[in-house]
């Protein structure tokens, strides 16, 4: 089984293309994982913030919208290539959720997408693919597709 992590960003598309290519050639089952990160919700209690309820509802709605969009793009790409694949959503901190998914499903391969980052970019993102490689179980092969 191949697990591909997607976030709707352009670099995710490259990761999906690789997952489809490998899924068809091996052949192997492909599952896409999209993590809904509720990070933005923690700011709702900011001093002087007004319209907290509307903000929380809007964050939920827009995060779900982004997940739906990612699902649509993934499904379309798979259907075009004639591959049947699954789409899964998890809620929480992305690194923790991907690790949990790896623990539960034990895929043979994990594919992530990424951007070529400068020093500041690497400092900011702390490289999710890199952190995954450090923390994940070594029985899963990892492929990081850099756009």
């Amino acid at each position: 089984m191949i697990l591909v992590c997607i976030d709707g960003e352009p670099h995710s598309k490259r990761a999906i293309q690789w997952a489809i290519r490998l899924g068809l050639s091996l052949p192997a089952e492909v599952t896409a994982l999209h993590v809904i990160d509720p990070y933005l919700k923690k700011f709702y209690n900011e001093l002087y913030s007004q319209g907290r309820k509307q903000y929380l509802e809007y964050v939920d709605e827009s995060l779900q919208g982004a997940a739906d969009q990612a699902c649509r793009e993934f499904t379309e790409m798979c259907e075009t290539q004639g591959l049947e694949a699954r789409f899964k959503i998890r809620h929480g901190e992305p690194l923790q959720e991907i690790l949990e998914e790896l623990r539960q499903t034990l895929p043979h391969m994990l594919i992530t997408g990424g951007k070529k980052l400068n020093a500041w970019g690497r400092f900011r993102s702390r490289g999710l693919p890199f952190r995954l490689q450090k923390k994940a179980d070594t029985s899963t092969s990892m492929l990081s597709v850099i756009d």
Partner: protein
Amino acid sequence: MQQLKHLFVPDWTRFVPGFLFCLVFAFLGMNLDHLVGQYHTVGIAWATFLYEEAQFNYVVILLLGGILVRNTIPLPKTLFPGISIARTIIKPGIIILGVHYVWADVVRVGGMGLALTAVFIFGTAIVVMWLCKKWGVSDGLGGIMGAGTGVCGVSAIIATSPVVRSSPIEMAYAIGTILLFGTLMLFTMPYIGTSINLSEPEFGGWAAIAILNTAQLVAAAEWYGTEARDTAVLINVARIMFLPLVVLFSVWFYVLRTGKQDPDHKINKWLLVKDKFPIFILGFFLLVFLNSLNIEAFGSPRIEGSPFWAMNASYTWLFAIGFSGIGLSISIEDMKKAGGKAFTIGMVAALVKMVLGLGVILLIGAQWLRVTGGN
């Protein structure tokens, strides 16, 4: 008993651990401040350095201590909800500060504050939104950066993002940028103010129009001194009164003007203004009103044992709990999310407001910005 239950949110217990943590943190910070003060009084060199040169007081102890704890010790997640609500304890503190003012202050300093706010705060919002539109920045990002750099930082982003339909990534960039520059301004402006001999009322005015985020604004002014705080709080009240108007302007600028309104979801402008109005400032003005009446039974902050004196004595503790919450909420991970076009917009807006704001404040002078409290 059943009626009492309605006073609490259903899951109120999740706020208890973090809030208690902030209480203990505030207690330790206040006592450390007291201890350093005592050592300074008896002439111990390092305490004098901290007190005089580094300007350490309870504000900076709680903020720096909070940032240090938050970013070096892996705090249990159970503490975060309580830490998050501790910040809002500053609000009752600000209401209580109403006893420091009389109407003459509100008219003079608040009037000046309204004029400054109209020019700087509303001006920033309009200019940023207009420039973003001109340079092809998305409406979602331009709207929240205009409101965020103009009015009250993250609070304004929270109020505006649903209206201009910002995407999650735009919100993360904008919040990270505001927090980054708000925090940088908090820790640099008091030292700049001291180095150029800015008086306390002048610094209060400068902080109130320049610092991007409100929590950091209150902290910087309290750090600088009591007169700086009194001026900053009054102008800040004028500033946040503009929040509903800026949201309304965003609706007009991005939705109504361009004909993008969904016919099935017509925007109720009155409801929008009502929802975004900061009701707590009415409490502040009520206390200003009562203080201005000079009623003997209420006394004043200077009459020991009087109700207003007791209220004034409690505000420092409310601020201390709030500053603990602010310090413990400042995460480097959050600020690292600053980026993209939001970073450039935020940096330019922060620098322009800092420089222009300082120039205007120096032109106005301390006389127009000093809160007398009826003295």
